[in-house]
């Protein structure tokens, strides 16, 4: 190091300074070039990347949910429409402190635990950024007002109006129309998230489920420019949603109401079909429930009470309930006998009141064995066997036919399979056969089994819809019409995977005449003295002014569900037989065919026949005579 001079050396100092500042400035220039390079990289090299990011930032695609198709009855009455619901929603991206916000909302609106739980669940579900998550549904005006006061303190919390499904007739139509439910996690995995963007509900049951693709409509989109807070600044482009198709059903809401009235407060079910088309005119299952409860989310307690009720209101008896058909299938067995030639109209048996298989000890009793004491129906041919519902005749006939032929003929009328085109929940019932028994019971078929099947008992099961359909086919003299809810509005009907049936051909007209005539006598044969009248005449046939064909039936209650916990009285009531009545009218040109079942109702003719009469009266005459209504209502 140079020894410093005593004097300040200005030249030396300014040289050092010059050197230093030039080096420094050089570094600054290099750093500036570095910045230039950085901007070159961001703005030129990576421009496309950031341009896309910027567009994604400000342009958001928002779904415009379509309005769900409306559902009408045959008279144009609305069965399902859409009504605005004000929902409280939260956009998590816009809320700093969700916990605090929920607490605040709880303070002013009172949130239930299950509501918060459901919200947390929905929040975790996959969704687009800045998509709002519903917290509360169907706010009242008062709740909206309370929220509005504090709204400014809760950014990201909004009241959103949405159209939700509404069922104007509530419980009345629930089992006929079905209902939508909120999309749950299982649904979310199954559905196309694009098609359901912005839609909260999906058809879960019945017509709503079957025609879901048509009812849903097509989602629309709008491209909006948003700011960082998610507020829409302007709409740039939009594709309007296509509303779902409107459906017109065969069902007649007034007939449905008449059926409900006729059932009164008893448990039971009615299925009425238009023989011309197969269209279902009424489908009642009592008790029912209000489907509107489910649309916006039902609370646990109400749901549990519906689910656990001994009366199973959620269960659609008309298509899911499987019962023994009892005597209602006797006309078909008889028809089989005539067609096969095993019997003729002149074939008589002597009914002692019981039947015994050759070489067996067991007695199969007739239904009136106990009543008349002395014995049976006496000399009986097929006609009398039908209008008096003679069991011994059919025991004899079914042994003659054998189970295979019985099955063949019952199958022709759609028993044992589902033929309903657009009722996804419809059950198949059960038509027992040798193979079925071997497979399921591991036992061979015994002649005794055939005897039971001959009068619609044993293992045989049908749904009320199946029975109504079978009666429709009888009314049509073999012409098949598949039962259906839809009258018009969708092509999906033709794509049903229900079993397709062929019309029953090669059955001579006189056979149909004979069978239908016998069923007519069930209702109309009267004033013939004790043991000679049609079984239903005394109850519905005295004052009827149109021709009706019918058949009563009783089904044994095979097992009691949920029975053990209830007291004796109720248990007894639940062990009583189910009452059936099937009918169609007018006989010469059938306009309606139906099946009525009253659970634990007792005898078919006394209990179920008046209900059938009331419904037929309503449909054919436009009104129900008061005395018919009162008999139907079980208030005689």
């Amino acid at each position, binding site marked *: 190091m140079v020894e410093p001079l005593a004097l300040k050396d*200005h030249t030396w100092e300014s040289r050092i300074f010059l050197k230093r500042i030039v080096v420094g400035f050089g570094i600054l220039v290099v750093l500036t070039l570095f910045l230039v390079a950085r*901007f070159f990289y961001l703005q030129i090299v990576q421009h496309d990347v950031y341009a896309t*990011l910027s567009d994604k930032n400000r342009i958001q695609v928002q779904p415009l949910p379509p309005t769900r198709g409306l559902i009408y009855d045959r008279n144009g009455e609305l069965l399902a429409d859409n009504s605005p619901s004000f929902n409280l929603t939260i956009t998590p991206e816009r809320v700093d402190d969700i916990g605090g916000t929920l607490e605040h909302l709880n303070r002013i609106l009172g949130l239930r635990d299950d509501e918060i739980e459901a919200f947390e669940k929905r929040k975790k579900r996959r969704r687009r950024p800045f998509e709002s998550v519903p917290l509360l549904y169907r706010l009242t005006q008062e709740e909206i007002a309370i929220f509005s006061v504090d709204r400014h303190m809760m950014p990201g919390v909004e009241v959103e109006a949405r159209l939700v499904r509404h069922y104007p007739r509530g419980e009345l139509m629930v089992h006929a129309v079905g209902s939508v439910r909120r999309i749950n996690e299982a649904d979310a995995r199954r559905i196309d998230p694009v098609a359901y963007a912005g839609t909260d509900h999906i058809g879960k049951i019945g017509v709503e489920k079957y025609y879901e693709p048509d009812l849903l409509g097509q989602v629309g989109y709008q491209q909006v420019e948003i700011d960082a807070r998610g507020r829409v600044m302007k709409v740039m482009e939009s594709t309007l949603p296509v509303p779902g198709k409107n459906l017109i059903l065969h069902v007649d809401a007034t007939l449905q109401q008449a059926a409900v009235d006729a059932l009164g407060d008893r448990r039971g079910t009615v299925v009425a079909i238009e023989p011309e088309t197969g269209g279902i005119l009424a489908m009642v299952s009592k008790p029912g429930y209000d489907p509107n409860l489910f649309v916006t989310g039902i609370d646990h307690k109400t749901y549990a009470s519906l689910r656990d009720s001994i009366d199973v209101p959620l269960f659609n008896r008309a298509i899911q309930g499987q019962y023994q058909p009892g005597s209602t299938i006797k006309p078909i067995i008889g028809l089989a006998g005539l067609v096969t030639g095993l019997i003729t109209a002149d074939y008589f048996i002597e009914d002692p009141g019981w039947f015994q298989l050759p070489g067996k000890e067991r007695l199969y009793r007739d239904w009136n064995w106990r009543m008349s004491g002395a014995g049976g129906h006496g000399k009986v041919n097929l006609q009398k066997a039908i209008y008096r519902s003679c069991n011994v005749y059919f025991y004899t006939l079914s042994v003659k036919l054998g189970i295979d032929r019985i099955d063949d003929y019952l199958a022709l009328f759609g028993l044992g399979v589902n033929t309903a085109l657009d009722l996804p929940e419809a059950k198949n019932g059960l038509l027992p056969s040798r193979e079925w028994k071997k497979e399921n019971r591991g036992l061979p078929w015994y002649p005794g089994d055939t005897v039971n099947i001959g009068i619609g008992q044993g293992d045989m099961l049908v749904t009320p819809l199946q029975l109504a359909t079978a009666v429709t086919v009888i009314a049509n003299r073999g012409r098949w019409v598949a039962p259906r809810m839809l009258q018009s509005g969708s092509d999906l009907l033709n794509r049903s995977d229900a079993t397709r049936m062929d019309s029953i051909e090669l059955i001579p007209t006189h056979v149909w005449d004979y069978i239908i005539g016998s069923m007519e006598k069930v209702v109309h044969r009267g004033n013939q003295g004790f043991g000679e009248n049609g079984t239903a005449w005394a109850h519905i046939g005295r004052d009827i002014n149109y021709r009706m064909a019918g058949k009563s039936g009783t089904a044994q209650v095979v097992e009691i569900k949920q029975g053990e916990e209830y007291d004796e009285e109720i248990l007894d009531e639940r062990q009583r037989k189910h009452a059936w009545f099937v009918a169609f009218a007018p006989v010469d040109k059938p306009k309606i065919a139906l099946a009525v079942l009253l659970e634990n109702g007792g005898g078919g003719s006394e209990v179920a026949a008046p209900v059938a009469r009331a419904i037929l009266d309503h449909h054919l005459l436009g009104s129900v005579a008061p005395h018919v209504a009162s008999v139907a209502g079980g208030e005689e």
Partner: protein
Amino acid sequence: MSHDFVRQLPGAGLNSPRKATVGDMVHLDLPMVFLLLVISAYGLLILYSAGGQRTEPVMSQGLKILAGVVVMVLAAQISPIFYRRMAPWIFLAGLATLVLVYFFGLEIKGSRRWLRIPGVISFQPSEIMKLVLPLILAWYFHDRHLPPKARHVFWSLVIIAIPVMLIAFQPDLGTSLIIGASGLFVLLLAGIQWRLVFSAIGIGVISAPALWFVLRDYQRQRILTLLNPESDPLGAGWNIIQSKTAIGSGGLFGKGLFQGTQSHLDFLPESQTDFIIAVLGEELGFAGVVFLLILYILLVGRGVILSVQAQDTFGRLLCGSITFTFFVYVFVNIGMVSGILPVVGVPLPLVSFGGTSILTLFAGFGILMSVHTHRRITL
């Protein structure tokens, strides 16, 4: 004293004699004034756009620039000799305000940076220190032989350390580092040995991990965010992602003035203050940014020329340090917004919306002009 004599002096090529210009008479350097006004006007234009084409921020900023120009003109009139003589007292006063702010400062977001004399003035003492520290160091070396001896370096480091520590404890790490740099620039320009410089840098690099443990959580977060902004896109990384997006989406010529979507739709945070260059980058593109950088480098270059032309050690060191510090602000701000430096609260000089910094900036340039226009030949 004649021109001929001056011409024969060693180093006279730098201090070439010339006629007194208009600028000299009013003690202003006209090229520098011109550059300052152009940058300010450019800044006002960007601010007008960033503020959503409202006139209020522009008017407010315009008034501050006007005030800054007044301060600059006044500062330029004062002789550098006066600055030099007053330097110790100004330094002590500056330290006093830093101590005061430590006890009586306005607490905002957990740090005390503002001193407020109610009804009179509120200011950041650390801002003033940007000028005061170079001033006192230039004063310190003015009478000493250069290059500085080890003990002079030691004492000058002590002088630097006092305000730097006081500001770091406010806490305001970003400003304290920049003020430390302004002091170190004086040392560098005074001719401190390179090996000292490099070994200091070496020690700094080695001890950097230790510094990590001294940092507060939010400071660590900023560094982590710099390394990986996508780690928390809606939280700490938001600013940097959005500013890079704004800049990158601008392209070569930008989306057009007032057409920036990032800024006008509020995606870009602090778009009028620290992040304003992102607005420029988005709306006027690479061209607009390079134009601003050219203006800055011209201004810094002019500052370098004035520093070189200064006639004594005090003037040279003071001017050089002020000029370099100005550049540090430019570099740190732009580096931060473009994602190569951590986010520290440093405004873009002459462009960002803000008060105190404009006044100190113009005061600094005023001092430069004072040194330049009060030249005499002294031996």
